[in-house]
């Protein structure tokens, strides 16, 4: 196929102005159903939903309807989700649509024009399909990064093009100098979303200023923080936006090669990327003389192999070079001397997805969103003990309260809020006291946490903070590459001390030991993994000292998570002798006749908590 010029792309857009319905130019196909098919939606059964819809449409012989795939809208708690678009009516979003529900929707909504009220997802879901939010609306979410996710079919490049796709690349190639591009990014105030929040323009200008006949743009899609998945969803739902951004970055710094380093655990995202690259190549948007300009740029995909440390820039480079992914000291910084010794820009997926919008709408427009030092939006993966788990995108400066309670719907099962962990294994906990502070890069660091990649794990009263700290340290012990002693030994020692506390052998001095070791690790570790590994435990000590002291002094775990500190007993007053617990106990250590009080044989109890979970009369006591 011949190379598409800017003019050709403009024509595609104009041809389809009428709407997003691309393959159905015939008037009569005017109803649309979009099924969210990201990994998460598919896991919840989106494929079956899709098939059920098709089957129902065929059976009912409905002609004026198209059913399309898209990435996900991020409403994990309500998957599978589908969107129904009927001209002249507001779009309707349905959640928890299994095959049965799908049939109901076709029957009632499509045929009789009556919405199926019980399945509609109103707030907070409506936040996300507002096209252009005006400034004073009460919508909490604002989508820049996720603008196309759940809207376009990621396997159809034309759909991306219609939504201004590749117009930023065209603008850059024909109207802007590399310096103009960097300046525009500078005006936007964009900071890296991969964790550290380094100004993107500055990194780019370092690389630009180095003379070298070969330079690289790497997209960091290693997404190693367990509990974060915004990069996966972005790549699955809108791969072109990231590819377009990489080409723009290449033009800005003078690189012709882009490498996407992606986790092998994300097969669907890899497939979507491969398809997107092929389609864009066919249109002449990648390869030589892009859009008829003098600029060449092409891609390669490289797979990660399950090592958290490979998210660190120098380790990532080692991994692409086919080696063990061990960090090396900086400087030299990769921007100056990176892959194969060449200047290399490494940017995170989310950082990149912002770039085309900044170029199209201007840096000033972007800089109007957010706080003084953190501009734009941030995508968070809201998970854990939260009602509406899912991906959300909010302007920087949104408060934790708005995120957890307004968008997230609060804590699930009526429990009490305890804390939120941000920044994953490098971050820390935010408590109730922090609920009203605007969240941005700097405010999080100020309280001893960090933005990280945007995982937000919500904890309730049933979660033990010693256990959480231990969990993160165990993760770091396993993921430490072992190259430097402070991290290799420090993570292990702190983990052992936490373990000691959790089994009831903790001593007062242990806390100070942990603090001292943590401070030493922060200073002496070679890479970010070791430097930040103590953050979770240090922040827990700061925010939940009382709870830790209970473990040490009273040998008590108020959440009942530290098994060695817990005993299960049955309250004689409350037990009605229903026998449910006795039947559930995996080691048969609960005795009692029907309708008689039951008793737990402590010497055999393995403290699995099954009896506690199943007793409907709150007769099992944890203490």
């Amino acid at each position, binding site marked *: 196929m011949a190379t598409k010029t800017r003019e050709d792309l403009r024509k595609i857009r104009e041809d389809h102005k009428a709407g997003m319905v691309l393959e159905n130019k015939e008037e009569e196909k005017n109803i649309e159903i979009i099924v969210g098919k990201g990994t998460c939606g598919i896991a919840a059964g989106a494929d079956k939903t899709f098939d059920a819809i098709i089957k129902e449409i065929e059976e009912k012989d409905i002609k004026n309807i198209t059913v399309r795939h898209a990435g996900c809208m991020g409403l994990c708690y309500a998957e599978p989700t589908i969107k129904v678009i009927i001209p002249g009516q507001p779009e309707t979003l349905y959640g928890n649509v299994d095959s049965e529900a799908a049939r109901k929707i076709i029957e009632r909504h499509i045929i009789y024009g009556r919405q199926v009220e019980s399945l509609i997802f109103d707030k907070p879901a409506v936040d996300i399909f507002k096209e252009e939010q005006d400034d004073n609306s009460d919508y909490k979410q604002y989508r820049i990064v996720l603008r196309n996710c759940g809207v376009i079919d990621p396997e159809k490049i034309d759909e991306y093009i219609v939504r201004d796709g590749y117009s930023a690349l065209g603008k850059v190639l024909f109207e802007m100098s590399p310096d103009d591009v960097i300046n525009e990014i500078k005006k936007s105030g964009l900071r890296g979303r991969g964790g550290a929040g380094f100004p993107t323009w500055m990194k780019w200008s370092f690389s630009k200023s180095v003379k070298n006949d070969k330079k690289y743009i790497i997209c960091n899609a290693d997404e190693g923080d367990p509990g974060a998945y915004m990069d996966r969803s972005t790549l699955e739902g809108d791969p072109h936006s990231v590819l377009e951004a990489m080409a723009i970055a290449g033009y800005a710094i003078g690189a012709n090669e882009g490498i996407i380093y992606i986790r092998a*655990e994300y097969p669907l995202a890899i497939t979507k990327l491969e398809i997107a690259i092929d389609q864009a190549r066919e249109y002449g948007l990648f390869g030589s003389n892009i859009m008829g300009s003098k600029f060449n740029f092409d891609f390669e995909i490289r*797979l*990660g192999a399950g090592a958290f440390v490979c998210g660190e820039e120098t380790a990532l480079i080692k991994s692409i*070079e*086919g080696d063990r992914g061990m960090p090396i000291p900086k400087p030299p910084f990769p921007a100056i001397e990176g892959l194969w010794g060449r200047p290399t820009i490494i940017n995170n997926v989310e950082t990149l997805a912002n770039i085309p919008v900044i170029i199209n709408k201007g840096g000033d427009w972007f800089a109007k969103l957010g706080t003084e030092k953190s501009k734009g939006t941030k995508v968070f993966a809201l*998970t854990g003990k939260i009602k509406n788990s899912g991906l959300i995108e909010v302007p920087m400066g949104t408060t934790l309260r708005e995120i957890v309670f307004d968008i997230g719907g609060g804590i699930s099962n009526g429990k009490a809020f305890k804390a939120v962990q941000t920044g994953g294994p490098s971050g820390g906990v935010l408590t109730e006291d922090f609920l009203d502070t605007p969240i941005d890069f700097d405010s999080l660091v100020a309280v001893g946490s960090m933005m990280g990649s945007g*995982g937000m794990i919500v904890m309730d009263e049933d979660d033990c903070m010693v256990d959480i700290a231990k*969990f993160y340290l165990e993760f770091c012990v396993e993921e430490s590459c072992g190259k430097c002693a402070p991290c290799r030994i420090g993570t292990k020692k702190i983990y052992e001390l936490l373990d000691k506390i959790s089994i009831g052998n903790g001593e007062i001095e242990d806390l100070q030991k942990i603090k001292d070791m943590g401070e030493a690790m922060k200073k002496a570790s070679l890479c970010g993994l070791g430097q930040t590994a103590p953050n979770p435990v240090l922040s827990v000590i700061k925010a939940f000292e009382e709870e830790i002291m209970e473990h040490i002094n009273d040998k008590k775990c108020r959440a009942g998570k530290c098994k060695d500190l817990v005993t299960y007993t049955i309250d004689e007053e409350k037990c009605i002798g229903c026998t449910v617990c006795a039947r559930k106990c995996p080691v048969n250590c609960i005795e009692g006749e029907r309708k008689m009080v039951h008793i737990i044989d402590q010497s055999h109890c393995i403290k699995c908590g099954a009896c506690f979970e199943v007793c409907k009369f709150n007769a099992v006591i944890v203490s």
Partner: protein
Amino acid sequence: MAEVNTSTIEFSKELSSFIEKWKNKQGNLVMILHKVQGEFGYIPRNAAIKVSHMLDTPLAKIYGVITFYNFFKLEKPGEHNIQVCTGTACYLKGGVDLIDELEILLGIGVNTVTDDGLFSIESVRCIGCCGLAPVILIDGEVFGKLEKDQLPEIIAKFRDK
């Protein structure tokens, strides 16, 4: 030095041509190992030796890389490898309980295979479906919002496959 007789393992045409294609690319090792594991489900010793010959790379370097990355396996997993997520979100929502239950149901521990070779259990860190926590992954199929009680049925389904 092309193929040498020391190794007896057969590579499929696809794998061989992949290696041919990547052979002269810099930094090819991780990609080639992925492809090998894709074919065998793990990296058999003979395959590692064969790759070492084909790429003219010392076996020690190949093992150095295999053992560094969690994704690569040296032992053959069960026909259906059950991957249980113990990432943060899944941990909070009872991922470890799922492992305990699977161990009881299958009578094996983590990283071991049932006698009939059908199942193995593996603990993995986050497969990016945290919103559906806790999740497990079997043969590429994700099961989310799982309760212990659902496990026997899921296992039965794969046993009959």
